[in-house]
């Protein structure tokens, strides 16, 4: 046992293994990233779309190969943090790749905002089973709060977003407490009504600017640096959208961390129990009202946060941006990706914001496209694109040695 040769041999073997894991992660992630970039920058029917098809074919061929699939699975489970950090590095590089094409950067920012909202909706729709059709109203409350405060009272963006978070959480609590006793279809109908009421209100009230909306919403400012100026990193000039891109990226990462923590926490489990069977959950000592209100308020916070950033990025908001359509799109994202699955929601948000941009000749029939997606998913893959869920408990650490 004490033979040093064996030890060093062991060491070199683990080193070899580690390197192979790292390489697998780098190769797979670069391929996925490359596909994504090509998909994003393709125009119409393009040779780049064929580049997209190749890795998909390769995926289906290699899926049968046990050795490769095992290697990929193992490397992602063993080097979890490395794969996350590497992916983040790739995503950080996007503004450098698109520095001449602000339109693509705009799409990326929008898909980030949609992702934040979808994560919030996932808490309600996926975890707690509340089919909330009023999520665009949460988004709108955030946007209008922040816009009104900054335009009329000259608040800074940072105070505005804070106010947006608080007001949207209160709004979530209000809707939550009014719908406490209703479930299923009735809950969906009531939230639909709330959504339409919100849309009509902002369309007709004086202080929200009516159908004209609010314009000239100021850009965020840090110290003397305004988000409207172009970003300069290592001597490379990036368009002003890059500022918002990084802001959205930071908030997306923060949101992902938060929802992951929530999913693995006791609260996440309480939400799941409420979704599955309210009476059984009650019999386990769960306070149903508290759980539902928490889901309502926390979900609304994500909506409010996204709304505030949206208002300051576009610098103009009107009621049309917060209509019933947006709620449907968000529900579509969550259902497509996989209910109560964070990875699925990410995939859904990216796909459903980019694909409609790619088929612009189809723009009038956008809602038709979403309808078809929902029907197709519900018929062929009701669990969504990524059905697998993994919940980590601290108390599972004992599993190997204790039982």
């Amino acid at each position, binding site marked *: 046992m004490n033979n040093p040769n064996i030890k060093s041999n062991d060491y070199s073997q683990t080193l070899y293994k580690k390197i192979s894991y790292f390489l697998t992660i780098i190769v797979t992630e670069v391929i996925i990233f490359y596909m994504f970039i090509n998909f994003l920058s393709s125009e119409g029917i393009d040779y780049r779309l064929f580049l997209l098809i190749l890795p998909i074919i390769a995926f289906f061929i290699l899926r049968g190969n046990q050795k490769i699939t095992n290697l990929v699975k193992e490397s992602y489970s063993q080097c979890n943090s490395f794969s996350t950090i590497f992916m983040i590095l790739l995503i950080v590089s996007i503004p450098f790749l698109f520095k001449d094409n602000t339109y693509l950067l705009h799409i990326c920012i929008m898909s980030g905002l949609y992702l934040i909202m979808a994560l919030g909706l996932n808490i309600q729709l996926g975890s707690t089973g509340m089919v909330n059709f009023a999520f665009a109203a949460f988004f709108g409350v955030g946007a209008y709060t922040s816009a009104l405060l900054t335009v009329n009272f000259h608040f800074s963006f940072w105070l505005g977003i804070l106010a947006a978070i608080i007001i949207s959480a209160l709004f979530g609590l209000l809707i939550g407490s009014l719908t406490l006793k209703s479930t299923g279809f009735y809950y969906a109908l009531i939230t639909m009504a709330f959504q339409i009421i919100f849309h009509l209100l902002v369309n007709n009230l004086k202080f929200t600017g009516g159908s004209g909306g609010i314009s000239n919403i100021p850009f965020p400012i840090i110290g003397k640096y305004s988000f409207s100026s172009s970003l300069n990193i290592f001597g490379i000039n990036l368009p002003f959208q890059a500022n918002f891109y990084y802001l959205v990226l930071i908030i997306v990462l923060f949101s992902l961390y938060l929802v992951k923590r929530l999913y693995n926490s006791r609260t996440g489990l309480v939400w799941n129990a409420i979704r599955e069977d309210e009476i059984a959950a009650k*019999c*386990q*000592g769960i306070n149903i009202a508290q759980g539902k209100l928490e889901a309502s308020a926390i979900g609304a916070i994500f909506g409010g946060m996204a709304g505030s950033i949206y208002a300051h990025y576009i610098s103009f908001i009107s009621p049309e941006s917060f209509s019933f359509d947006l709620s449907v799109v968000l529900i579509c994202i969550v259902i497509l990706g996989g209910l109560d699955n964070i990875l699925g929601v990410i995939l859904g948000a990216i796909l459903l914001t980019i694909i409609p941009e790619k088929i612009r000749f189809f723009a009038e029939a956008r809602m038709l496209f979403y309808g078809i997606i929902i029907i197709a998913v519900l018929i062929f893959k009701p669990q969504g694109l990524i059905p697998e869920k993994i*919940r980590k408990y601290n108390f599972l650490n004992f599993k190997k040695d204790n039982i």
Partner: protein
Amino acid sequence: MLKINGITTRYGTVEILRDVSLKINEGEIVALLGANGAGKTTILNTIIGLIRPIHGNIYLENKRIDKMKTSEIIKAGISMVMENRGIFPDLNILENLRIGSLYEKDEKSINKTLKEVYDLFPILKERENQLAGTLSGGEQGMLAIGRGMMGKPKIMLLDEPSLGLAPMLVDEVFEAIKRINNEGTTILLVEQNAVKALKIASRGYVLQKGQIVIEGSIKELKENEVIKKAYLTI
């Protein structure tokens, strides 16, 4: 331990329970027998506060619980295994069990209870990561009982645990109930399977049309002509 004094319950204007009194001492298994619609499940639902009594009161260890919220009653040390089992079908076994001990902070004690559950029902450990909805009826019953144990209750209310089980499994489940009782949990067992229930219980009550008609020790119950006629003959 659990004392029910003269409760009356109504669904709308229909009286379900009339002046029902039960007393369960620490460490006992008490069987509650009765035909369909006699009000057995209503008694359990009243105990955990899903239904409020109009008259009467309920005490758990000298603490009045009939005015408390359901979640607080459960936390006070009662666990309920529902008639339809009430498992969460889209969560796996481990998650279901974890929900049973949601308000336990000490992880070590959760692990210990989990180990006890797995000792009692080894099949649950084998299928730990399987979705509860895909289990067989018997396994779901075991999961429901296991989840009831996870909260480390002082008293466990079991609503027809033998419902829909094969005879072999019924024996296994009753054996498990007895073991849970031996480890110090008081049990109120609602059953239609009187033969099996009277085998493990120490005392019993018979409920008929919302009223307690017979009560006594197992020996007395077994010799009672009414019970012999209604429940013990095949």
